Structure formats: structure tokens, C-alpha cells
């Protein structure tokens, strides 16, 4: 289990992370969601000890992670920025990965590279944005560490390769469970894949619960403006969409037992909920 205890991090005047507390349990898929600049990358970099927090602790099974080789070897983070030498060939990067991570499955890596259509003889710098992402994903899927962190994994991937990535991820997870943390702003793609959702906004955690729990907490009502306005009085309203005399309102809370006539109630889907939660 990875535990984050009251992490703070500022860049100059910008509070990148504000008193973050989180737990990542074993063998679950987490979605770390937030808009661009919300603090997702900073958090992942702090977990993996690439960046230091101003205060707070990051623990793996109770032991601090930073500067702890044993803990660091249990983690793999695919960063948005490529940290592999530009001039290195993909196949050499795979060979080195095997050196660094004894559990790295080089045959599997080569197999999925073929599936993605990545030529392993190429140099890393010559790869397009999409294939640079694919290159990192291939290593992440083959590395076999207990914790795999994906920062914007599908950046620049076309629809087919995105689908292939999620398929491989689930296949891998089903065959040999691990903890995955997927940082993304594309909720529609991960909503069916993740167990647990963490929503981060302006450096603060605004939601940290299982997808099911979160979904059960919100609902949508729609109807004529007058009726809706009367109904939502005193309720925790997340957002309102108006269209002429009709209104759709996203509400956080349990559905009332008796809904007034003329108001239609539907469950909230994750994507709508997320957009409402992270709107400014």
C-alpha cells in the first residue's frame, strides 16, 4: 500500500499540492483525474521521489519511499517527459529495463511492440508523440512491478492504439493483479476500467472514493425551470444546464423517496459528474 500523508508542494507562489492525504491499496486500478495543471504530475513525481515535497510523507507499506531503493524498485512511472536518452534505440531501452527490473518481460515487450506497430530498431528521438507514449507504455506493461503509475498514458495515441492499450492493461491486470494509477483528464476512457477515482482540483483532493460510491451519490433531475428550481432548493447542487424553459440539474446526495410530478430523475454518469465537479 502507498500512503501519502499531508503532502504540500509549492512552485514559487503557485500551490501545486495542498495538504494531500491519499492511500493506494494493492491490486486496484485508480483513476487520478483532474484538469490540466491540477497537480496530477507533481503528485506522481513526488510519489516516485523524482521531486521532493515541501512537507509531508510518502510511504510504501509503512516505509518512506524517497531515496529508498527497495521501495523505488517496486514502482514504475511513465512520465510525460521522456527520461530515456534520446539517442538510445528502443530495443536497447528494453534491454536496460531488464537489467534494472529483473521481472521485466522482454519477450512480452517485443510482442506488444509488434502489436502496436512500434519498430524497436528506431531511436527514441525519432519517434512521434504517439509512439513515444507507446514506447513508455510498452515498458510499463512489461515491467511487472507491483505499482505502475501512468501519467497521461494515451497522449497522442490514435483510437486503435488507445483501445489496444486498455485491452492489454486489463488483460495484464486480470492475469496478474497489480496497483495501477492512471492519471488523465479523459474520464470517458477510463471510467469503465477504474475501481477507484481520485479527483484533484487546484492541488486539492476533491473526491477520493470507489466509482460505485461516487455514482451512487449523485443524480440528475430535469424538467421545467419552475418545478426544478422549487425542487433543488436546499440541495447540494453541482451544476445546472439550461435549455429554454427546461433545466437539468446535477445534484449530490441521495435520491428523495418522493419526487414531485413532472420531474424526471436519472442517475449521474461519471463523466458528467466529473465535469461538474471540476468546473471552475
Amino acid at each position: 500500500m502507498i500512503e501519502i500523508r499531508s503532502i504540500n508542494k509549492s512552485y514559487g507562489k503557485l500551490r501545486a499540492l495542498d495538504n494531500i492525504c491519499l492511500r493506494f491499496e494493492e491490486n486496484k486500478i485508480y483513476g487520478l483525474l483532474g484538469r490540466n495543471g491540477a497537480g496530477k504530475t507533481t503528485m506522481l513525481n513526488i510519489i516516485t521521489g523524482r521531486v521532493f515535497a515541501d512537507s509531508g510523507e510518502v510511504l510504501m507499506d509503512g516505509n518512506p519511499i524517497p531515496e529508498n531503493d527497495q521501495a523505488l524498485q517496486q514502482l514504475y512511472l511513465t512520465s510525460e517527459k521522456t527520461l530515456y536518452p534520446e539517442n538510445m534505440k528502443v530495443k536497447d531501452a528494453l534491454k536496460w529495463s531488464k537489467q534494472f527490473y529483473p521481472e521485466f518481460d522482454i519477450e512480452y515487450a517485443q510482442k506488444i511492440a509488434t502489436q502496436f506497430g512500434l519498430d524497436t530498431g528506431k531511436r527514441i528521438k525519432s519517434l512521434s508523440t504517439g509512439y513515444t507514449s507507446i514506447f513508455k507504455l510498452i515498458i510499463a506493461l512489461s515491467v511487472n512491478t507491483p505499482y505502475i503509475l501512468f501519467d497521461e498514458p494515451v497522449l497522442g495515441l490514435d483510437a486503435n492504439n488507445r483501445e489496444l492499450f486498455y485491452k492489454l492493461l486489463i488483460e495484464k491486470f486480470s492475469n496478474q493483479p497489480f496497483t495501477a494509477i492512471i492519471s488523465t483528464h479523459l474520464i470517458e476512457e477510463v471510467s469503465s476500467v477504474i475501481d477507484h477515482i481520485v479527483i484533484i482540483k487546484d492541488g486539492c483532493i476533491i473526491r477520493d472514493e470507489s466509482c460505485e460510491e461516487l455514482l451512487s451519490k449523485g443524480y440528475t433531475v430535469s424538467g421545467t425551470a419552475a418545478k426544478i428550481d422549487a425542487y433543488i432548493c436546499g440541495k447540494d447542487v453541482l451544476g445546472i444546464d439550461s435549455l429554454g424553459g427546461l433545466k437539468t440539474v446535477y445534484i449530490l446526495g441521495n435520491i428523495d423517496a418522493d419526487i414531485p410530478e413532472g420531474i424526471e430523475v436519472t442517475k449521474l454518469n461519471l463523466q458528467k459528474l466529473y465535469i461538474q465537479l471540476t468546473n471552475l
Partner: protein
Amino acid sequence: MNLKAAYKYQLTDHTKSVIIYYCVIVVLFALLSIATVNYSTGGSMISGMDSITVVFLFIVGLCTFREPFVMLLQNGFSRKSIFKSRLLVACTVVLIMAAIDKVILLLGKALSMSSSNSSFLSLYEQVYPASTAHVSPFLFHLNIFVFDLLMYFTFLAIGYLITLIFYRLNKAGKIAVGAGVPIFFCLIFPIFDYAFFGSGISRAFANFFDSIMGISAGNPYAAMLSFIVISVIISALSWLLMRRAVIKL
């Protein structure tokens, strides 16, 4: 721990440049020898092969921090492990290069022996001519070897430290240090020193350098000791800087 992989990775990083370096050196010496044999009328002298290696290692030091550092962080190494393996790699490279230079020196000496009017000298022999006279050949060559070894390590470490300083600085700091240091030492300091102290500070520096290197005293052991002290200080500074180095976003 998995120190071996980090060591191997960084060593591999150096191997190519070292091989290229010696290829160039061999070609250069071959050309020089041909030129001397065919065209030179008077005596000739090839010397200071080890000073070229020093410059090379200084540049290698300048170029080898960032890439392996971020690569090894990506692959689950602590800064401590990266630093430790880096020290081991530096020792290895320096040892190998001092040994190769030794072989080249011996070969050069053997070749120059056949023609009476040319000679092949190491930096050590040039700086400490007096100390070469009264020692056994074995001790003489051992001294050169140890001297080269320590000198190489020092310059490699200095190059590495400079890059680390620049890595840690932000953009403004990089410009300030990058421009400020040369301006200070080439312009402000000499003028200041000349105007107010009659170049007394420069002279004091020169004397200090002379005495720690044992040049006037003809004592190479002073230099060896100084190299050790400088290396330790530089490496300690490097560690202090690396300890808190982060991946720049």
C-alpha cells in the same frame, strides 16, 4: 541492491567516448610520427599525452551528469545509489585510462629510443624533471601512473561538479554564473588586483598553487596528496548538490 546495473549502465555510457578518444589519439600519434620521421630535420618531442587525457576527462565530466541521472531515476534508483555507482564508474574509467596512457607512454618511449633525436615525455616528467633522476625505473613509472590517476579523477570530478551546479541553477542563475564567473576572473578580478594590490593576490594564488602542486619543490607527492584532498572536497560538494536534485518539469 541493484547497484551493479546502475554501474554497468554508466560505464557503458563512457565506453564509446573512451574508445573514440583513443582511436583519435592513435591516429594522431601515427601521423605525428610519420611527419617527424619524414620531414623533420632537427630533434622532435612528443609530450603531454596525459594532459590531453585530462582535458578529455574534464569534458567527459561536463557531459555525463544529466542523461544517466534522469534515466536512473526513471528506473527506480535512489540518488544515493546513483552517486555511489557514479563514483565507482569514475574510478574505473580513470584507472583504465591511466593504464592505457601508461602503455602508450612506454610504447612511445621505446619507439623514440630508436631515433636519437626524438623523445616522448609525460606531463609528470615535464613538471617534475628533478624527481625523475634518482629513482628506480619501476618507482618512476609507478609515480607517473599514480599521479595521472589522481589528476584524471580530479578533473573528471570537477567537470561533473560544474554540470551539477548548472543543473541545479534556474535559468537566471545559469546566465549569472555562466557569464559572471568568466567576467569576474578575466576582467574584474585582474583589474581589481592590479589596481589595489599590485597583482599581489594573483601572485599569492600562483604561489599557493605552486606549493600544493610541489612544482618548485620538485615534489610530486605534494601534488598527489592535493589531488586527493581536492577530489574528496569536490565529490562531497557533488553529493550535496545531487542529494536534492530533482527532475525538472
